């Protein structure tokens, strides 16, 4: 079983971002994260991928789906810790190419914040 922890502060965080998304997005995200939660390891999950290059050290959760005629690409950047924990750091909607530069910088900033103060990533469950 994978245990999630969600980056949250008073102003930004996973749940605040989720709350701003349309219900169709939230449903899709819940379904993906629920499957990951139930898995023994991330390697067996289709929608999880370790990143390289500038984003090395982060893992992305890929949530792709069609809504009417539009293709939606959601990404949640995070990292795995010992004890089968996965820290959800930075969610975003991918609209362009494969360059995650800005998103990865934000995720790394948050990761450092969590490493300094673990309370910034609170246990969370989906759905």
């Amino acid at each position, binding site marked *: 079983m994978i245990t999630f922890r969600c980056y949250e502060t008073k102003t930004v965080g996973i749940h605040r971002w989720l709350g701003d998304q349309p219900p169709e997005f939230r*449903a899709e995200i819940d379904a993906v994260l629920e499957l990951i939660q*139930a898995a023994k390891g991330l390697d*067996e999950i*289709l929608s999880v991928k370790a990143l390289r290059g500038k984003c090395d050290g982060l893992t992305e959760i890929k949530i792709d789906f069609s809504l009417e005629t539009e293709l939606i690409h959601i990404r949640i950047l995070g990292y795995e810790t010992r004890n089968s924990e996965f820290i959800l750091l930075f969610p975003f909607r991918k609209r362009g190419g494969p360059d995650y530069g800005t998103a990865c910088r934000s995720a790394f900033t948050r990761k450092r914040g969590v490493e300094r103060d673990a309370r910034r990533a609170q246990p969370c*469950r989906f*759905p």
Partner: protein
Amino acid sequence: MHGERSPVDSHRLFSLVGKMHDKRYRDNYVVAHTRRVLAQQMRNFRGELPQGEFGELIGKRQTVVSRLENPNYGAWQLRTMFEIASKCNVAVFVRFVDFPTFLKYTNDLSDEALHPESYREEAMDEFVAYETAVNEFFITSGIASSAGLVDVENVNDRTDASVLSNVFNQRNIAMPETGNLRGVQQIAPVGLRSSSIPSVTATGPGFPLVANNPFSIEIDTMASGD
């Protein structure tokens, strides 16, 4: 899990019930959950085999295997499902259901549920033995079963582990290690619509039922949902 009935995850249940007030959410959750579970099952069936080799086993091209493993693929055909089920020697279960039933039957995302066991005679025999013994337990202990062995309604607390033990012993079936009966806050679909309706959920790895398997019968006189 070979048919194990897991107690409904109450966190998931309450969370989803709240979110499903929104029709757009619930419609999309049904689609997303179903699509992604099917893709994961397809991936699990393949195991370590390359897509091409697995495709040969199930009579599909590699491109088709790839498509069926794509969690974003939403154009499954019943015919394809039946063909793959036949090749993998598993069953397919598709029907329209109400939302409480959907919540209940989508609760199990265990490895066993996502990679169902191929048909096995012994598993069928063990299933029958287990169901018969548990059913006898309910009858012996005065519990009326109106819907098989799960979601038994109109339950009282006249249950006794020793009765269960006797039933299993008489049938020469391996007795569960603990045979424990414990009260839990168990939610049955019917409980979402009315309060104070007791429910019983029987759980146990059970299938196959072998010695040393942990086992529990969870019984609750439920009062929740409103």
